[in-house]
């Protein structure tokens, strides 16, 4: 069992990775708990960023710049996703006057 003070004072890759995990968990929590489609999308962004953080940590760890390229591609995909996702949200809102995912259950029955 490592010394707790060491854990605080000596920051390494592990800390970044754990931070990424925590961030991802918070994102999952957001998707699970919230009803607003916008918040859910933001939570997804959080998860993507947690992934990016992890990728960059590993890139640093292994000294491989490919991780940086990969993170950039993730960002581009995230941007595309946000663009399309928000368009969908707007389209849904136009028809239904709400973006509550709990009430979007037309396919259920």
């Amino acid at each position, binding site marked *: 069992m*490592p010394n707790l003070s*060491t854990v605080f*004072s*000596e*920051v*390494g890759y*592990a*800390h*970044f*990775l754990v*931070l990424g*995990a*925590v*961030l991802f*968990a*918070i994102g999952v*929590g*957001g998707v*699970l*708990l*919230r*009803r*607003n489609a*916008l918040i859910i999308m*933001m*939570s997804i*962004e*959080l998860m993507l*960023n947690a992934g*990016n*953080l992890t990728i960059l940590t590993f*890139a*640093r*760890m*292994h*000294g491989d*710049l*490919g991780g*940086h*390229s*990969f*993170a*950039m591609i993730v*960002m581009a*995909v995230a*941007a*595309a*996703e946000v*663009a*399309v996702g*928000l*368009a*969908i*949200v*707007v*389209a849904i*809102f136009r028809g239904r006057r709400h973006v*509550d*995912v*709990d009430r979007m259950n037309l396919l259920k029955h």
Partner: protein
Amino acid sequence: MTARVLTAILAVLFVVLAFDAGAAHAQGAVAPVDAKIGPAPDFDPPRSATTAGKTVSKRDSVASPAPGAPTNAAAKRTKGGMAFAFWGFAALTVLGSLFVITRRNLITAVMGMVGTFFALAALYMLLYAHFLAIIQMLVYAGAIMVLFVFVIMILNKPEDEPFALSGRVGKVLAGLAMAYLVFRIGSVLIDVPAHVTMAQNAAPARTAAGDDWGSTAAVGMNLFNDYLFPFEAVSLTLLIAVVGAIAIARPLKDDEPAAEAATPGGH
């Protein structure tokens, strides 16, 4: 009101931390290894061309101290500054993300997200990913945030019940599962020996082309040499996304009178 106060506190914290991190970084780059602490790290001199030392036997060789090694005190300051910056920005990140998922006001949520992204950008810098840090700020904190804000302004409808409570059992289970995952990752990572951690503050070596690691030039070389096809593919993805977004968000046309006019009059 609370939200604004919190936001202000976060902002101040960010500025302070940013300064400190900058300082720590500058020194860390010069003094990667504290020679007194232990043998040189065998596993992680981040060089593109080296075989990262994974064999156990290599551990026994005692690396000579790097030339121009900083004093012990400088090393300690570096260590403390690094830790301070990390914990601070980590706290910002977590706080901001908690803002996102808890605030009822959407604008507050977006602001929390922006804070998270800024703090993440700073963390990227700690990982020597300077270019990515800037991109993070431009793309996320700039573009995506603006997009969100626009949409929020379009919708502008406060929620009656922000939390989705249907399927509670499943969500609790999922929360427990998530906690278990985080715990497992954390419990693995917490075993990392201290000397390993210390060595990680070393600045990575330059790339083969002589660029600083993580700089625009280095990332550019990597992106356009090794990952050209994914780059082009993702550009196409963006194009499709733009077209798709327009197609989806465009208002549905009403019945056009032109259609009726086009019908030939048979009588």
